[in-house]
């Protein structure tokens, strides 16, 4: 999740109040941001993905100030109409269909402010913009461009300009190939015949979204006073929200906001639209959900602490908020304003019948029997590798592979548990023998009838490692288990690479194979550097339990 680090003095100026450290820490946590660090100069917080509006010092201070009751209620953003135009050509439809824009004038840019703007842009790119896939943001100095601006798509060879951080002009294909931004974001234009481009009235390239701005027209510096801002992407509403988040911050930075006319063929829009959206406030619903008894006026005050307005039973949602989908979202903000710490814990007297899963009970009973025979239980991972499951066990079993595990030691789901157990015995060679252990675990195999195409069973593997252990000893354990649960089994000699020939058997109940038993093949012992004999069995408990239930 994204973190932002903000200057504490700037923060305090925007908030309008200084708080002692302890209070500050507490309030930041209770506002719904994870506090990372507070010191004399800086505050670092983690902003949850539902609140991109807090990813700037202005946005965060705004939310904080109203939360502590300093500047509550809906912030007003005055938008002055301008005649400047953005003409959206229909050719962008298949590449990047929408853009929304605004002009902010009178910003006295200095190093600090330029940094802030770039920071907001970058944080929004990564989070709300999903690495520029959903939204790409461009900021341009007005003095270097001539309105109206055109948004179109063109053959990449015809898009030629000097991108930021480059020394010479390139065409779009060269940019994707050679420029660092092209390498990072080029995949977003993969498969497109034409690339999107903004051009001004002089036909100068402003930028090629979502990749890079032009050096000539798209670089803000200390002389810049007025900026043109656009957001491009695939969803008009999302772009408007994103634009509003930026505009609100720039407004609070001291800018004057001017709207622009957007021409989409015959359709006309004006952005930014900083008017709050209205949502009916269902106070009954909210009280029931939160267990409170708020009056309309209480709710109004609480909403105002979260930066909302309130008018005649309606909540006025700030235009920079994108996360209010439902009454329950209002309920959460009211709960935050009320203070999570002020909710009294209550357990309702609701009669429900407890029930432990029957199969879980069965597994525990089997485990208890083994504990009674002095076996130790091991707890193992479901993820393992092919070498452990097959090669070192001198056998071949079909495995389910993961597609993206970052560790090659753990890139398959196990098909049987005994390899885990042998591995444990191998890791414990330096400890006293006899060693008697068991492990219960999930195993996986492909099966078409399942939803996921994978069947999961629980199995138990039981092993004895000792100087003098043998088939008889482990068979006695198996016998004891089956006698204890009153199940009769059949046993038949079998061949299995992991076991010694003539000392391996298959166990079945009502003709269904459910277990292997035998002495481990010395080849396998050698693979695991084990120097004592091991006798083991593995039972499919899922199948066994199914049979018992019948």
């Amino acid at each position, binding site marked *: 999740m994204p973190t932002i680090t903000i200057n504490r003095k700037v923060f305090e100026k925007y908030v309008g109040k200084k708080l002692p450290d302890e209070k500050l820490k507490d309030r930041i946590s209770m506002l719904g941001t994870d506090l990372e660090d507070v010191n004399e100069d800086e505050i670092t917080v983690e902003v949850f993905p539902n609140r991109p509006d807090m990813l700037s010092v202005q946005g965060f201070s705004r939310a904080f100030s109203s939360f502590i009751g300093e500047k509550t209620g809906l912030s007003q953003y005055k938008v002055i109409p301008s005649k400047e135009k953005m003409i959206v050509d229909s050719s962008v439809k298949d590449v990047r269909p929408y853009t929304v824009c605004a002009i902010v004038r009178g910003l006295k840019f200095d190093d600090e402010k330029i940094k802030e703007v770039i920071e907001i842009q970058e944080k929004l790119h990564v989070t709300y913009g999903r690495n520029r896939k959903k939204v790409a943001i461009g900021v341009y100095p007005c003095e270097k461009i001539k309105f109206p601006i055109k948004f179109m798509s063109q053959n990449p060879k015809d898009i030629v300009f000097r991108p930021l951080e480059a020394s010479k002009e390139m065409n779009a294909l060269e940019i994707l190939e050679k420029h660092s931004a092209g390498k990072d974001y080029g995949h977003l234009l993969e498969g497109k015949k034409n690339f999107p481009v903004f051009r001004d009235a002089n036909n100068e390239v402003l930028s090629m979204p979502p990749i890079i701005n032009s050096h000539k027209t798209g670089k803000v510096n200390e002389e810049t006073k007025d900026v043109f801002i656009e957001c491009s992407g695939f969803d008009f509403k999302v772009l408007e929200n994103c634009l509003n988040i930026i505009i609100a911050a720039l407004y609070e930075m001291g800018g004057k906001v001017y709207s622009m006319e957007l021409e989409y063929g015959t359709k006309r829009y004006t952005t930014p639209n900083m008017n709050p959206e209205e949502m009916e406030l269902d106070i009954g619903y909210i009280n029931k959900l939160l267990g409170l008894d708020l009056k309309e006026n209480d709710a109004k005050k609480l909403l105002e602490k979260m930066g909302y307005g309130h008018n005649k039973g309606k909540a006025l949602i700030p235009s920079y908020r994108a996360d209010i989908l439902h009454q329950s979202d209002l309920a959460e903000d009211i709960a935050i304003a009320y203070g999570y710490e002020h909710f009294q814990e209550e*357990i309702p007297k609701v009669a429900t019948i407890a029930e432990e899963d029957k199969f879980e009970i069965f597994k525990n009973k089997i485990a208890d029997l083994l504990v009674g025979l002095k076996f130790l239980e091991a707890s193992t991972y479901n993820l393992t590798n092919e070498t452990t499951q097959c090669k070192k066990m001198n056998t071949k079993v079909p495995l389910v592979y993961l597609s993206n595990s970052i560790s090659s030691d753990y890139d398959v789901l196990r098909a049987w548990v005994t390899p885990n157990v042998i591995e444990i015995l191998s*890791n414990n060679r330096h400890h006293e023998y006899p060693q008697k252990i068991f492990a219960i675990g999930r195993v996986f195999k492909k099966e078409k009838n399942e939803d996921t195409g994978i069947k999961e069973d629980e199995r138990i593997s039981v092993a004895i490692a000792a100087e003098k252990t043998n088939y008889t000893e482990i068979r006695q354990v198996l016998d004891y288990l089956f006698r204890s649960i009153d199940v009769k089994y059949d046993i038949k000699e079998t061949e299995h690479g992991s076991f010694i020939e003539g000392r391996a058997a298959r166990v079945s109940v009502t003709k269904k194979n459910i277990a292997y038993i035998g002495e481990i093949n010395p080849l396998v012992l050698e693979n695991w550097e084990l120097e004592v004999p091991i006798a083991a069995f593995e039972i499919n408990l899922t199948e066994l339990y199914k049979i018992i239930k019948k």
Partner: protein
Amino acid sequence: MSLDKIIASLHPLERKVLPVLKETDDFEIIAEKSGLQKVEVMRALQWLQNKKLIVVNQKLNEQISLDENGLNYKEKGVPEKKFLEAIKRKTSLEDLRKKSGLSNEELNICLGMLKRKNAIDIHKEKGIFVSITSAGKELVKKSFPEEIFLKKSFPINVSELQIEDKEVFEDLKKRKKILRINIVKIIKADLTEQGKKIASKRVSGKDILDQLTSKSLKSREWKNKKLRSYDVEINVPNISGGKRHFVSQATQYIKKIWLDMGFKEMTGNYVQTSFWDLDALFVPQDHPARDEQDTFFIKDPSHGSLPKKFAEKIKDAHENGANTGSKGWQYKWSSEEAKKNLLRTHTTVLSAKTIASLKKEDLPAKFFSVGKVFRNETLSWKHLFEFIQVEGIVIDPDANFKNLKGYLKEFFAKMGFSDVRIRPAHFPYTEPSAEVDVWHPTKKQWVELGGSGIFRPELVKPLLGIEVPVLAWGLGMERTIMEYYNITDARDVYKNDIKQLRETKLWMK
């Protein structure tokens, strides 16, 4: 303790050793005279010392015994003697070698040594010639001190050597494979004043019964004898039994808490479709939590199938909020994305499936699960890729946010945490959402143990058919388990070290 009482408590081994101690303090001799095995004597001495009847002294001794050459020279004489005997007037070294049968190495040693003793003269002409001196002749007549030393009865303790032997010993020690020096533990047992008193008494123990046996019970022999008293305060050797793994023990305990509170257990598969793990929980398909890097996906079969009953409803909820009064996420939902198989990222997937299986008449209902969840991480001291999540849901038309806090507080009180707080958080499937912290009594700070909230209507209504508040939480348990067992490296939780498993304490919360 009175003498009689002490005598009554003597073990048969002690009884055999005690009388011998009047004669000797030497361990070897005690063993010989008592007719016991050395381990038995050791045990008896240990017990007697515990009873303060003897003082056992152990010291390390250098003990000399004969090595290969030493044994050989003892029998056949030392090479220097052979050397001297072989000299006739001026004899060349070559002739000496032939006559004496000594090796070149031995010859060289003899040359140096005999010269030092003035037993020979060395003449360098064409080659080396040797002649014997009068001192040398004397030597041949007498016995060599080295030979006398080698004929002693070994082993001998270095500390017991006579002064005149010391010099010879030092010389021989330098020579090849003549002597072998071993460090030997010497044990001496001396009677204390109390011990002397008891040793002088009759301690044969004829009137004492050592073990109660079925034979002595049948014969009623015990009636006429006294049963030996034990030292009941003494330490005994460790044993170990069978045991559940400590994670299983903790899991059982946690399950029991929820059962006590009237919750039903949920279980289910580890491999799930994204549909159940994420889409049904209203996690938008471009949410950062769905990032490939955190989630394990399955290579083959990479996709599963969608449940007909719910697929459309979930699609609508995502795209436009369906009939929930919500706007939805306002994007185009992809069924291909939803079909992707993964390893469950949270047990909340079980909650979704459970809600989907309920009918209105089943409410109110409460469910829990304690189960494995997966995250694509590299195994390290801090991170596991498989860990246990404790999940709970309360589906109750009258449930509210205060109840959520109530259930959590009750659970953590039973886990031994007296204070619980919740603070605002964000999860795509809960609203309100809350992080759960417990007050750590020794660290004196809040520790984050999980997430919670009330499920969004966009989740509940498509699955259940009606809108009902569902309180929900997912808590991490490894940290609490690690702390209880003083484990600092997360990997040690599933290390399965047999010694550790044998010795770990039970989960005693």
